[in-house]
C-alpha cells in the first residue's frame, strides 16, 4: 500500500469514506459507544444498513466484545469509541488483545486537528497513551490519508502476529470531504511479516524429532490464530508421529481434548502428566506458544534435558525467555504443512520402541489422576466447582457451544474440566488476565453466532467488573448464559493468601454481593440459583433450555483450591497435588518465589 491510488473518488465526508473502507474490509459489526468527537461517524452509521452497530455500556466492554467476535470467527473485530474518556476506557481491552494476539481495529474520536494539544474538552493524547497498548496506531491528520490508513490498519491487525490497531480520528477529518480508494494488494512499505518457514530449519527439526525418544508437542494460541486449517494439520501431525501433546490456556481446542494423545493443559495449573512430560522430555516442539512464565515455572529448571524447537510467526517470541536449539519463523499452518511433508519424506525410522516406553511413563503419571476431586452426592451437599463445570460440559456436549471466562479459579477449572475439541470455541483472557473479560466477550461471540449456546463461566467477583453489559444483552436480546461459580471470594487471591500468606484473607472476601437472581430480573433476564448438589443439573438444564439471557448463580464450596499447582518459582517436577493426594496442600515457596506473581 504505497499511496499509489489507481482510482480515487471524493466522498462527501470523512465519516462516509471511513464506513466505505470498513465495508471493503469486510466489517459487519461495530461495537461502540458514541460521544461528541465521533458524532459524524454515528450519523453515517444511521444512514446505512450494511454495518450493524452494537451499543455497549462501557468502552472496555466494546473491545472485549470485539475480541470475542474476532476469536470466535477468525475475522478482525471492530470498535468505535469517542475521544478522551472513550479512548482511555478502551485501553484495558487493547492491552488484553495485544497480549493474546487478537486482531482488533479500534477507531477513536479526537478533537479537531486545530485543537490538538490545547487540552480541549475530552482531549487525551490517545496515540501517546496507546502506543505500547497496540500493535500499531495512527493519528490521521490529513483527509487524503484517511482511507489508506484504514486499509493498512486492517492489514496490520490481521497479518503476522495479529493484534490491536488503533486509528485516532480528529473530528474535522470526519466532517471534511475525503477521497476513497479500494484496498491495494501491494506489499506494505516496511511491514512484511514472514509466514513461510525456512526449509533448512524444518529439516533440522525433523532430524531431532525422528531421533527423539521422549518427545512432547507443546502448542499455543498461535495455532488458533493460524486458522482452522492449522488445527487440522496439527491433528494430522500428532497422529502421524504418535507424539504426546499438551497445550497452553490460549491453545485449548486446537487439538481435540478428548483424544488420548492429549495430555491436558500444562503450566501452573496444568495436569501432572503434561508438566512431567515437559520436564522429562528429550525433544520439545513448541508450536505457536511463547514460553510464558505461567508455563515455564522456574526458568533455570524448565525442561532441563530437552532439545527445543520453537516455531512462531513472531521472531521476537523466539529466544526471549528460553533459549532454543531450532528456531522456525513462520505461520503455524505453513510450518505444520512443511513438518508433515518433511516427516513423510525423511527416510530415517522413528524409534517406536522408545516412544512406547515414553507412553508407558506418561500413562503412569496419568494414572495419578491429578484432577481428581470428590463430590458428595447426598442431597443438600455443597457443590464442588469442578463438578459444576463437568456437569455443564456433559449437558452441552453435542451442541454448538462457545465458552468464555472471566479470570481466576473458575477460569482454571473451566480450562481443566471443560473439554474443547474444536478451535475458536474457547475465549479467555490469558496474557493480561483481565477480570471482566468474559461477559462482554460472550456478547461478541453471541452477536457472531446468534444460534449458538454461549456460556460465560464466571466468578461472582469478576462478573461484577462489567456487569453493566447486562443492559446490552437485554437491548439486543442476546441469550448469553452467565454461569457464576459463586464462592463469595476472589477465589484465586484467597487461594494464594491461604498457601503463601498464612491464610490472612486481606480484602478477598466478596462482601455485600448482590442477589444475582434479582439482578438478572432487573435487567430483563432470567435468574436461577443452585444452592446444593441436587439443584445443579436442573439449573443447568433450565439455563440451556431458556432462550433468553440467564444468570445461573451456582453456590459452590468456598474453600476449594485449584490443583494441581506449581507454586511460583518452583520447577515442573515439584507440583502440588490436591488434598485427595498424599502430598497435597503444602506450598514450600522460597522468598524468590514469593516475589513472583
Amino acid at each position: 500500500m504505497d499511496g499509489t491510488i489507481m482510482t480515487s473518488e471524493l466522498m462527501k465526508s470523512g465519516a462516509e469514506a471511513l464506513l466505505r473502507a470498513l465495508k471493503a474490509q469486510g466489517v459487519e459489526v461495530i461495537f461502540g459507544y458514541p460521544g461528541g468527537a465521533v458524532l459524524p461517524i454515528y450519523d453515517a452509521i444511521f444512514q446505512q444498513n450494511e454495518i450493524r452497530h452494537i451499543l455497549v455500556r462501557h468502552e472496555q466492554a466494546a473491545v472485549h466484545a470485539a475480541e470475542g467476535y474476532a476469536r470466535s470467527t477468525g475475522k478482525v473485530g471492530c470498535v468505535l469509541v469517542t475521544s478522551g474518556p472513550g479512548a482511555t476506557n478502551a485501553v484495558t481491552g487493547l492491552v488484553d488483545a495485544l497480549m493474546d494476539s487478537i486482531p482488533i481495529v479500534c477507531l477513536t474520536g479526537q478533537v479537531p486537528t486545530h485543537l490538538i494539544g490545547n487540552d480541549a474538552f475530552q482531549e487525551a493524547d490517545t496515540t501517546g497513551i496507546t502506543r505500547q497498548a497496540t500493535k500499531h496506531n495512527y493519528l490521521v491528520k490529513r483527509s487524503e490519508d484517511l482511507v489508506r490508513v484504514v486499509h493498512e490498519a486492517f492489514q496490520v491487525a490481521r497479518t503476522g502476529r495479529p493484534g490491536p490497531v488503533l486509528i485516532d480520528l480528529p473530528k474535522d477529518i470526519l466532517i471534511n470531504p475525503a477521497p476513497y480508494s479500494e484496498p491495494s494488494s501491494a506489499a506494505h512499505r516496511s511491514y512484511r511479516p514472514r509466514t513461510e518457514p525456512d526449509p533448512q530449519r524444518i529439516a533440522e527439526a525433523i532430524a531431532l524429532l525422528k531421533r527423539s525418544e521422549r518427545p512432547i508437542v507443546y502448542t499455543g494460541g498461535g495455532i488458533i490464530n493460524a486458522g482452522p486449517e492449522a488445527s487440522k494439520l496439527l491433528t494430522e501431525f500428532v497422529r502421524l508421529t504418535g507424539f504426546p501433546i499438551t497445550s497452553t490456556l490460549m491453545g485449548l481446542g486446537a487439538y481435540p481434548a478428548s483424544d488420548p494423545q492429549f495430555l491436558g493443559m500444562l503450566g501452573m495449573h496444568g495436569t501432572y502428566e503434561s508438566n512431567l512430560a515437559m520436564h522429562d522430555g528429550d525433544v520439545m516442539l513448541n508450536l505457536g506458544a511463547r514460553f510464558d512464565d505461567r508455563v515455564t515455572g522456574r526458568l533455570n529448571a524448565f525442561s532441563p534435558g530437552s532439545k527445543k524447537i520453537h516455531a512462531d510467526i513472531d521472531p521476537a517470541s523466539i529466544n526471549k525467555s528460553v533459549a532454543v536449539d531450532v528456531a522456525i519463523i513462520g505461520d503455524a499452518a505453513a510450518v505444520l504443512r512443511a513438518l508433515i511433508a518433511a516427516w513423510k519424506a525423511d527416510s530415517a525410522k522413528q524409534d517406536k520402541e522408545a516412544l512406547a516406553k515414553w507412553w508407558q511413563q506418561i500413562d503412569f503419571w496419568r494414572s495419578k489422576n491429578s484432577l481428581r476431586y470428590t463430590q458428595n452426592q447426598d442431597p443438600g451437599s455443597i457443590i464442588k466447582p469442578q463438578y459444576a463445570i463437568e456437569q455443564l460440559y456433559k449437558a452441552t456436549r453435542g451442541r454448538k457451544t462457545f465458552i468464555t471466562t472471566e479470570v481466576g479459579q473458575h477460569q482454571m477449572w473451566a480450562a481443566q474440566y471443560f473439554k474443547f475439541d474444536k478451535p475458536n470455541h474457547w475465549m479467555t483472557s490469558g496474557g493480561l488476565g483481565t477480570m471482566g473479560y468474559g461477559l462482554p466477550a460472550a456478547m461478541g461471540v453471541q452477536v457472531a453466532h446468534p444460534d449458538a449456546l454461549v456460556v460465560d463461566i464466571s466468578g461472582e467477583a469478576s462478573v461484577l467488573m462489567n456487569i453493566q453489559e447486562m443492559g446490552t444483552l437485554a437491548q439486543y436480546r442476546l441469550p448469553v448464559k452467565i454461569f457464576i461459580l459463586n464462592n463469595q471470594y476472589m477465589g484465586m487471591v484467597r487461594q494464594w493468601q491461604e498457601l503463601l500468606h498464612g491464610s490472612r484473607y486481606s480484602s478477598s472476601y466478596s462482601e455485600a454481593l448482590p442477589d444475582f437472581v434479582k439482578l438478572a430480573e432487573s435487567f430483563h433476564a432470567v435468574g436461577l440459583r443452585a444452592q446444593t448438589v441436587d439443584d445443579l443439573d436442573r439449573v443447568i438444564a433450565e439455563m440451556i433450555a431458556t432462550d433468553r439471557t440467564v444468570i445461573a448463580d451456582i453456590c459452590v464450596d468456598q474453600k476449594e483450591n485449584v490443583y494441581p499447582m506449581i507454586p511460583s518459582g518452583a520447577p515442573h517436577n515439584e507440583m502440588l497435588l490436591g488434598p485427595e493426594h498424599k502430598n497435597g496442600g503444602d506450598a514450600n515457596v522460597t522468598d524468590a518465589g514469593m516475589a513472583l506473581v
Partner: protein
Amino acid sequence: MSDSNLRSATISVLVENEAGVLARVIGLFSGRGYNIDNLTVAPVEQDRSKSRITIVTSGTEMVIEQIKAQLGRLVPVYKVLDLSQGPHLARELALIKVVGAGEHRQEALRLADAFRARVIDASTESFIFELTGATDKLDAFLDLMRPLGLAEVSRTGVAAIARGKGTIE
C-alpha cells in the same frame, strides 16, 4: 540459558520518517527495560521519507538479539542492522566550552591541537572546541579538559556505518 556476559551493541535502524516513530523506539526500550547508552536520529533520504536511528545499547547476547527482534517487528521499521557484528565506523561530534585564563588556557589549547579539535569560538576567557571522533576519544579529551576549566559540553551522539560497499538496504 545463554551466558550472562554483557556486550555493547551499535544498532542502526532505518525507519519511516513519520510522527511518533522515535517515541515507539524509545518506548520499546523503556517498556522492556533495555538500556540506551546513546541515541541519534535524523532523516537520511533526499525526500526525507526515511530516518536512521543509531542506538548504542548493552546487554547479554540474548537480550541484544531480543532488542533487534523487537525493533524489527515495529510497523514503520524497514531494517535493523547490528553494526557491532562486523567492521564499522562510529563517530560523534562534541562542542566543548572551556573557561579560564593563564597557564590553563595555554594547556587547553595545546591539548586541543594534539586531539585535532578546532577552535570555533574564542573570547579572552573562553574557548569553544569542536571535536569529532569515536566516543572514547571524546571522553578522553573531556577528562583532560576537566581540570582546565571545562564549563559546558554538547554532544551529538553516535553516527555509525558499516565499512565496505554493503549498505543497510
